Every structure is written in structure tokens, then in C-alpha cells.
């Protein structure tokens, strides 16, 4: 086990554990704070993969933007912290069996599959290449993403708007 493996398992553990706490926490503010660690763990995994730009975007957009907005939303909404969140569990046994089988299946296929790997050395920085590819070969996808975001914006405005009866 190399040092990279240890770092990987560390970040993976942080991600999974905090994600588990996000869904089980009774207090919605706690959930939001656990989400911080989930995002942070994922950012760590990106760094480990050599995806420096995505890691920074993850920190800046998710932790810096979305999470803060989420917390603002929670704190500015009246009485939301005292709302009882229904997080009861039903059908525990079937769920455990189903998920266990699924996990075992995923694990066994993941371990036995011969994955395609490119033994390329990590680039010094990915920002340049990423920008170049996005505006060249993947320009269609880039533009379509723009439209997707526009639709998301219109949709969000449409949902949030108060209807005049």
C-alpha cells in the first residue's frame, strides 16, 4: 500500500461517512454542515486524480457558493430548524438484503473487470488543455450546457414565482 492508497482511502472514508451523516442527521443545519465534508472529500479525490482545476471548482462552487447559499436559505427560512424531519426507516430487512446483494455484485464486478488504463504521466496543469478541448472538440457539449443552464434558470424562476390567483 503506497502513500497514495492511504490518502485515497482517507478521503473516501471522509466522503462516505459524512454523506451517511447528511441523510441521517435529524437537524437540517447539521445536515448542511456534514455536506461540507462530503464536498471536501470529493475535492480531495479529484486532487489525487490529478484533476486540479475540477478540485478547485469543486471547492469554490460547491463549498464556497452552493453550500453557503444553502445555509443562508435554511437560516433565513422561518422555523425550518425546528421542523421534525421524517427520517424513519421502513422495510429494513428487504432493503438490507437488496442493497447487500447490489453492493456485493458491484464490488465483484469492479474487482474482476480489466479496466482500460492509460499509463500517461500527469500533466503539470490541466486548465489549459481543458479550456482548449471544451472550446474545440467539445464545443457542441459546451454550448448545450449553456442552454441547459438557461433552462434550469427559467425553470427555477418559474417554480419560485408566486402565482396571482
Amino acid at each position: 500500500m503506497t502513500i497514495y492508497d492511504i490518502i485515497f482511502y482517507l478521503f473516501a472514508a471522509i466522503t462516505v461517512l459524512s454523506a451517511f451523516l447528511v441523510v441521517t442527521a435529524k437537524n437540517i443545519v447539521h445536515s448542511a454542515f456534514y455536506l461540507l465534508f462530503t464536498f471536501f472529500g470529493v475535492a480531495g479525490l479529484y486532487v489525487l486524480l490529478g484533476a486540479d482545476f475540477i478540485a478547485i471548482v469543486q471547492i469554490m462552487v460547491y463549498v464556497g457558493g452552493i453550500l453557503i447559499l444553502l445555509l443562508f436559505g435554511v437560516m433565513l427560512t422561518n422555523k425550518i430548524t425546528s421542523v421534525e424531519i421524517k427520517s424513519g426507516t421502513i422495510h429494513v430487512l428487504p432493503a438490507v438484503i437488496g442493497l447487500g446483494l447490489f453492493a456485493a455484485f458491484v464490488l465483484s464486478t469492479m474487482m474482476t473487470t480489466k479496466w482500460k488504463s492509460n499509463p500517461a504521466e500527469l500533466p503539470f496543469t490541466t486548465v489549459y488543455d481543458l479550456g482548449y478541448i471544451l472550446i474545440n472538440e467539445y464545443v457542441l457539449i459546451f454550448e448545450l450546457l449553456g442552454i441547459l443552464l438557461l433552462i434550469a434558470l427559467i425553470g427555477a424562476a418559474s417554480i419560485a414565482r408566486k402565482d396571482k390567483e
Partner: protein
Amino acid sequence: MDASLLTENLSYILPEIVISAALIIIVLFDLIFHNDKRIIPYLAVAGLAVAGFFIIDQFSFEGSAFATSSSANNFGMITVDNFGSFFKLFVVCVSILIVFFSFSSEEIQKTFDRLGEYYALIFGMILGMIILVSASDLILIYLALELLSLSSYVLAGFTKLRDRNSEASLKYLIFGGVSSGLMLFGISIIYGMTGTTNLYLINPLLQAPNLNLITVSFAMILIFTGIGYKISSAPFHFWTPDVYEGAPIVITAFLSVASKAAGFALLIRLIKTTFVTFTSPDGYWQLINAFDWQALLIIISIFTMTLGNFTALWQNNLKRMLAYSSIAHAGYLLLGLVVMSDQGLTAILIYFVFYALMNLGAFYIIMLIANKTGSEEIDDYTGLGSAAPFLGVSLAIFLVSLTGLPPTAGFIGKLYIFIALVDAKMIAVAIIALLNTVVSLYYYVRVLKHMYLQKSDSPKDAILPSTGQILFILILLVPTLLFGVYFTPIVTFAKNSISLLGF
């Protein structure tokens, strides 16, 4: 990408560009002219007509655009072929009908000051669908699917006037989120094994020896989750009844026809470009021995139509009943794919044209009746046959066509599917489908029984549709009857539209 290459690539996606431009014009128009929203629907129709012109222009033209540097043979992300053009034209025609549909919908007219948003979201759906039917790259497929889903989530809860509206939207969102997450997981597994997202490049890589076939099957089942959700096939159909019942009827009709067609086009393109090695002279596809699509699809289609038909028997809400009927129809359509032949594909295309006519017609009449009575419950249809003679007769014809009885178009659609099954020597499957059709007769005819044979306690007010509405019904009704006896043009058109690039 230099300028000349870019212009060449752009010429392949002219319909998509027109739809995007129309979307942006609608948004801008809505922002600039607050008070004159009546023009927006006409803008939408104009945009769709121009896009339709470019699609017809693309017929019998094949090509591939937006190739990445790693892709050999110049197979890019967008594929232009007759198959794609057929479905693009289908989506655009249905969308034009949906725009006229919206004119007479009271639910939509009540939200008149949000008309700009409504059409912007409709165009988001259209753009997602026409890219979906021509995409041959997994990233683009996923993105187009998300664009389609995102717009439909909002539209399903667009009117916000009733609780069940928001419930529909939320249910759709949650189910959609889960299935698109699973699909993305499947895509990432395929990318991890092959190192490419291009469907044409995955094909030879899947033929490589010592490939772990269990992992391929696993990934394909996950990808099918995302597609099965779009075409509402069992066991991914749970959202369908609730969403179809809760959403505005216009959106229900749009989802049940166009969205389903886009999902089917994606499934067919995925199977044919990724898993087929060659087509034998008699039209049967030779599949790569990596994943048994045929077995999976047989099970899913039988399960889907049986479940859809039998659950529809107990429904008392007409929208809910048509939701289950649309699940059953997804099952029949999958049968056309089960045979894995050009004949089956032709049958699917024919079926879709007829299905669009009769399903849109049925939903339109239900909407006109709901506009007056405010209800879609089957008990409120008692005695409607005499209160609204024209609507009653038209609804009867559409429902008979949905059952698949002659002399309506629905019969011809089913006939071609059954012929394809019998020719492929799948007699047992054909018999199950036939028995299913018999079952479906019960719940369609039940509506007719309520309309004509039962006496209502209180006299019903007469429902008189306007001239425009009668015209719209006739546009759907006349072909439904005409294609039942004279269907050669549609069959020829479908036969010319089955060619996919490279096969």
C-alpha cells in the same frame, strides 16, 4: 477546430440551431414585450416550421459531425441519417400539434402571464429530444437526456394551482434523479472499460476477446434504467400514473408521445450502433455476443404490457387509465425491437405515427371535456354521448384505435408488429401480445359504455367545441380513419427511414 471545419459541422445541425435560436428569441421577446404575449405561440410555430423544413432537407443525407481527435473513421458526436431525421420530424410535428393543443387548454390559458416561460421550457424539451435522437456519444446522450428531463420536471408542475400538480413534479424529479444517476454510473463503467464515449468506437472494442461480459451486462442494465424511465417501461414505470394524472393534460400528452419516441430512438440507436456487427440480407441484425438484449427486452416488454393493461382495468380516472395504457403501448413498441430486424424497426416507426395521432386525439378530447366539467373521472362521462355527440364519437374512434381494432390506424400498427413477430418465429410472444390486446379492449370499451349505454341521473349540459377545436380534432381523426384503410404512404415512408449511419 478551424473555421471551415466548424461551418461544415454546423451545417449538419441546422435543425438544432433553429430550435435553439427560437428558444432564445422566445425568451428575449418575453422579456422585451411584456404586454403582448399573444404572439409567442406563433413565434413557436414559426420556429418549429423552419426547423421542420431543415429536417426534411436533411432526408436521404447521411453524415457525422463534431468528431473528436481521438475518433477514427470520423464518427462524431452527432449522426445525421434517415432514422434520426424521421424521429426529428416526428418530434417537431407533435410539437406543432402541442402548441395548438395549448391554445384550447384552460389550465395553460389561466397562466397566461407565464406564457413565455411555458414556451421556453417546451423548446428546451424539443431541443433535448431532437439532439437525443441523433446523438452518438454517451456524454451528449446524457446531456440531452438531462435537458429533456429538466424541462419536463418544471412543466409537469407548471400550473401550480392544484396540489397534485406539485406532487407530479416532485415525483417526476425524484424518480428521474435516481434513474439518471444510475444511467450515469453505467456510462462511466462503459467508459472505464473501453476508454471512449463514442458509440461507433465502443462497437469494435466490445468485440475484443477476454472482455468481462458480466460488467458489460451490468453497465447496459444501468443504462437501460435511464432509457426505461423515459419510455416508461416496467419496472421503471412507477412515476407514470401519478405524473400523467397530476400534470396539465397538454404536458401529459406531450410526455406520452414525444418523450417516449425520443427514448425509443435512443434505445434503438444505442443497440444498433453499439451491439450490431452487420445486418444479414433478410434484415436480421447480428448482435455482438456481449449482452443478450433480446432476452432482456422480451422479459421487459411482456412484463410492461401485461402490467399496464391489467392495472388499467381498475382505473376510474381517465388520465390515469391512459397512463397505464401508454405503459402497455410501450410494451407493444418494445416487441418491435425484440425481433432485432429491419422489419421490426419499420413496425415501430409505423406504430409511432399512428400512436401519436390517436393518443393526442384522446387526450385532446379529454381536455375539452375537463375544461367544461372540471373532472376526468369516468363516472362523469355518463351520458356524455348525447350531451356532446361530436366529442363522444371522436373519443370512441380514438379509443377503438388505441385498442387496435379495424378499420382504424391502430389496427395497422399492431398488425405490422405482430407480422414482424411471427416472421421471426416468436409465436409465443405474439400470442401473449394478442391476449393483452383483448384485455385492453375491456377498459377502453368501458368508457364507451359509460358514454352511451348508461343513463345519467341529472341532464348534462351540452359541450359545444369551437370551430378551431373541431378542426384540430378532424386533423387527428381523419388520418386515424384514413390510415386504417390506406396505409401504403406511411409504410413506404417508414421503410425509407430505417437506415442508420454505418449499418
